[in-house]
């Protein structure tokens, strides 16, 4: 029986239809609900595919050979998709694909999800205004989504997902085109929201190490490392060619270790470790 407080993936394997190579290989992992899970890995490692499985796009809308079992709390994306989908929002890697195509303005595009959730008009007004302000799109509310700059479009994609305050948020590389301040604000905001399970694929390893409770590392469809960012980053195999956070690079250069060849990966850990060295 599935544990209500856990995300659990057991023996998950997947091969796309009309394709021979397995994209995900026997993945086994679990994590507590309402935590932030960072998913990292190189091209074609299977990050987007894993997101699709978690969101139930696979197998509900995309076919293939799916083995194993996935549970988010007591719901399974395979069996309870429509219930799960109502609590889940997904930011796709390509913001262009996120648009409904049925809205003439940015404001309408953001309101679309709220309409679908049966929210009343006054609440819609308020939520749209709030989220637009949060994502700095207020000046663009009346513009057509197709005339936005790349980064603005990405902000819109995020806005459409977070506007409904979902319980599960799946983010596939959501900040790749955002400016530094916008990216920092977004990651800081992610760290503050409660009662939400967040899966986030990103190349922003520095930000992930600051906010993620868990990191999962995918290499060629296999989950090769899982754990806290401290454990995972310290155990990366150089052959995987995965970038490391600047804190870790600096600590290694300066040899500021937490003992036992363990180097800090975020600012807090670095602070602690430098403090210890001084007191010694």
């Amino acid at each position, binding site marked *: 029986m599935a544990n209500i407080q856990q995300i659990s993936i057991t023996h998950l394997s997947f091969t796309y239809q009309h394709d021979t190579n397995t994209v995900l290989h026997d993945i086994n992992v679990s994590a507590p609900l309402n935590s932030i899970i960072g998913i990292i890995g190189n091209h074609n490692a299977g990050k987007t595919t894993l997101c699709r499985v978690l969101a139930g796009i696979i197998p509900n809308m995309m076919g293939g050979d799916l083995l194993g079992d996935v549970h988010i709390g007591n719901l399974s994306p395979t069996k309870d998709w429509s219930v799960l989908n109502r609590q889940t929002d997904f930011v796709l890697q390509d913001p262009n694909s996120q648009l409904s195509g049925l809205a003439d303005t940015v404001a309408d595009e953001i309101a679309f999800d709220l309409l679908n959730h049966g929210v009343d008009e006054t609440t819609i007004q308020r939520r749209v205004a709030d989220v637009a302000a949060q994502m700095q799109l207020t000046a663009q509310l009346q513009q057509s989504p197709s005339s936005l700059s790349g980064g603005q479009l990405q902000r819109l994609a995020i806005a459409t997902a977070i506007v409904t305050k979902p319980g599960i948020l799946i983010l596939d590389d959501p900040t790749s085109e955002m400016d530094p301040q*916008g990216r920092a604000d977004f990651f800081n905001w992610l760290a503050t929201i409660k009662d939400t399970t967040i899966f986030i694929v990103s190349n922003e390893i520095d930000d992930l190490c600051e906010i993620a409770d868990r990191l999962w590392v995918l290499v060629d469809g296999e989950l090769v490392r899982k754990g806290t960012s401290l454990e995972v980053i310290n155990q990366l195999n150089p052959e995987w060619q995965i970038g490391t956070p600047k804190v870790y690079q600096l600590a290694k250069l300066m040899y500021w270790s937490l003992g036992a060849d363990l180097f800090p990966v975020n600012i807090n850990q670095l602070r602690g470790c430098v403090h210890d060295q001084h007191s010694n």
Partner: protein
Amino acid sequence: MTSIQIDGLKYQYPTSDFKLAIDQLTITENLVAIAGQNGAGKSTLFKLLTGLVHPQAGEIHINHRDLASLTPEDRLKTIGIVFQDPSSQLFNATVEKEVAWSVLQVETDAAVVADTVNDALATVGLTELKDKNPFDLSMPEKKLLSIATVLAVNPQIYLFDEPMISLDWPSQQLVTHLMQHLAEEKHQVIAITHDMNWLAATFAKVDVLADGQVIFEGKPETFFGDSALTQKTGLMTPRIMQIAQEVFDDSRVYLTPEDYFEKHSEKR
């Protein structure tokens, strides 16, 4: 030596309030970064530099020739652009044809075309995917492919609009080395980026845009050293400077962890 000279440039889209206005901007360095907030007008500037949209006022001179007076062939060999959104740059049936289409604009000899295509694909590491449909590629692969289409023409000036988007670490290294190599070979390479760490580590010159205007031209060290300016333009300092600030209350300029290491090991 290539040069770009912009005078009294004004541009506005018919359907938005945004205004781009650049009084004067000269770019002569080989490796230049352009930074600025979302919607600051960076991509618009690139479209103007390639003649894809026409300014309402002002002039652009490339190598002392008016951009508007260049023949299409000349323009193609002078300046090439990699779009921010790779999907809108690609329109052929296979990866190989995609690159060949570009080469065929400037070259007719079939053997030369085939060689150039193979070289370009090999450079970005897409040789194995050459028979795939570009629309089936992943985002980063599309980005690499659109880079290959410009490499194949080999213009004097390369414009890269956010080349690092969604690239993984090895591909980022590849593209960085490629750009450095091009710059060494006397090409001019101009890249838009939001990655301050990469900017600090790779570029010696940066132009910063805010609300359609050029706010800063010069060395990244100077820019990052002026915290009021960095704030005002909505950008941030490189991660290493944030670390130094937050952990050691040290607000000096560092570009990379290595830079920090060197500056601090001298003292010991």
